[in-house]
């Protein structure tokens, strides 16, 4: 399925040769880094252990990358993944000026996202993002705040993808970051590693509240006509591949550009992601996601001492 999407993306971009470049470049860097690491630091015995370890975790990798706004996803795009065991997440991301989500001269600048994600139920999640522009706080203040929800419509089944609806409650007088979308994600665990593919559609319309009016004084506007917003308007697609249990590669078309990147995870909860926009600019995202069902320190220590 991810192959189909890739081809679909190629057709859309109209430049088949261009698509392969960032992906292969990223993959090449990733693999060559891995190889040099293996050669440099591993004795043959260690290498054997590594390979066993590698094979052990081959088939049960859980992917939990997030997008720039801390939602399960790839780079710019959200997926339909659901971190059921990790209801709380904090994410920081860096987006270069050229690919900022803001389009007006006043607020377009290097962008930092600070995000919190909290699962309220097994089918509803709330996200808060602050879009800080560290170079111009005197002009825009702390940055735009974005509060939105994700609803899990379908769980992933063997022959059926997971389906998630993302919704931004209307009510903002400046809903530049607002986005509403429907996305499907399917995972494929193969002997070559784990694949995931997502296909989504983001609404090209936005509800804007008039500054003087109350919460219900809303107007439907086309996003493009509203401060030139283009984030997640239309169809988007993304895929990732995890050949090893601690990292992988990903590629997406975020409705505007093609992006490709790598991710590395540490102990299931820390993710580092780096990627390029059209192989021109580098950006990165780092996130921690964890469980809220643990016991207090004292209790854990006591139970541990007993063992």
């Amino acid at each position: 399925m991810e192959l189909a999407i890739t081809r679909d993306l190629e057709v859309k971009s109209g430049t088949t040769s261009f698509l392969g470049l960032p992906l292969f470049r990223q993959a090449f860097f990733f693999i060559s880094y891995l190889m040099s690491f293996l050669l440099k630091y591993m004795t043959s015995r260690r290498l054997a252990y590594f390979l066993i370890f590698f094979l052990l975790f081959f088939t049960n990798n859980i992917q939990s990358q997030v997008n720039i706004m801390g939602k399960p996803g790839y780079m710019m795009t959200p997926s339909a993944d659901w971190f059921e065991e990790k209801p709380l997440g904090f994410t920081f991301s860096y987006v270069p000026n050229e690919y900022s989500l803001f389009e007006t001269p006043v607020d377009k600048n290097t962008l930092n996202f600070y995000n919190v994600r909290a699962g309220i139920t097994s089918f509803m999640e709330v996200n808060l993002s602050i879009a800080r522009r560290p170079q111009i706080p005197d002009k825009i203040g702390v940055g735009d705040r974005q509060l939105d929800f994700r609803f899990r419509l379908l769980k992933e089944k063997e022959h059926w993808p997971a389906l998630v609806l993302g919704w931004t409650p209307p009510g903002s007088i400046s809903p530049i970051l607002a986005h509403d979308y429907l996305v499907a994600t399917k995972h494929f665990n193969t002997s070559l590693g784990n694949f995931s593919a997502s296909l989504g559609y983001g609404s090209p319309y936005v509800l804007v509240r008039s500054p003087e009016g109350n919460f219900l004084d809303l107007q439907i506007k086309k996003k493009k006509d509203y401060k030139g917003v283009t984030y997640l308007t239309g169809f988007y697609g993304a895929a990732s591949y995890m050949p090893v249990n601690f990292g992988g590669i990903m590629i997406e078309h975020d409705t505007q550009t093609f992006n490709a990147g790598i991710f590395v995870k540490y102990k299931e909860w820390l993710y580092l992601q780096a990627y390029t926009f059209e192989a021109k600019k580098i950006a990165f995202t780092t996130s921690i996601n964890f469980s809220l069902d643990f016991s207090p320190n004292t209790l854990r220590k006591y139970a541990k001492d007993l063992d």
Partner: protein
Amino acid sequence: MRNAGFENVQVLGANDSFVVFFEHREFRMPYHSMQLAKLIIDNSDAQPYTKLSFIPMYHNVPIGKYTAEGYNYSSLTQLETEAFQTHNKVLKNYRISLRIQPEVIARFGFYTDPFETKFNINLNSRIYIARGLSFQTGITVPVVNNLDNQSLELRLAPSMIHYFNQARDHHFISLSLGSFYNNRYGIDFEYRHADLNKRWSFGFAAGLTGFYWLNGLGLYNEPLDDIYLKADAEYRLPFENLSLKLTAGQFLYKDKGLRFDLVKQYAAAEIGLFASSTNIGTTTGFQFAFSLFPGKLYRNKKLEVRTTEEFRWEYTYNNFEPVAHDFRLGMPRLSEVLRQYNQNFINPLK
């Protein structure tokens, strides 16, 4: 058990059936203290039992009886209440518990200074005087303040006399007198009807408060003229530890309106979403509460130093207008305390 932080431990029982009374102030949830108590009893050379129950206390007041096997709740029997009253030694059986409690007040948005924050560390202690009656005081150590012009000198932390009781089964009251958080002082009263077996609970709260401000030893205060009065109903949904709560009435600053809360309880934290609509305006936001890591820092027979059992923070989208404002006491509000004791919450955790 005492070494593990339990206080006022009393064992009542005959043959192989025991009831253990205790209080444990380090944990936010009674589930964790009961779990620890069970671990300790099972791994000690105490007499074997066939039936074991716990009676956790809060502010030296027994809340209810929970079986150690299934954590099933029941109210105390007459005999248990009498036995507790005879053996309860409120001054002797408690440690001095020093609590480190950070306080964060933040406002985002002004262009000149986007992250306006006030960060204080409160070192405080609650001393139990009689059953349900306690006194809380301490020192506030201001660390950062670019929110307002309150000075960074040490000052007296919110100090109050507090009375908490379960007058009759399922009827809880809380009365506070003194200086509170959020710069309020005065008197505050709460009542709550909460059968800890049931999903519904109801409460009302009222208070007469005024604004006060301490700069080191200097005190500025406004008159005691702000009345708040509100009632609420809370329903615990039969799935996923979710509770819905609707509060209506007059909030602080004579602001009349409604507030709706959706609260999700996890074993390690509580996350809530809310929306309120009042005379002043409309807002939405979220709150969360959790115990601060690591809990116990130092403990001996007479003294305990620990981090706070509950750090709570609320974010509201409309941060300029005080929509449906509330203030905090030295203890969580009754609904927040009793939610943790509900059998429907504790039962599925085991």
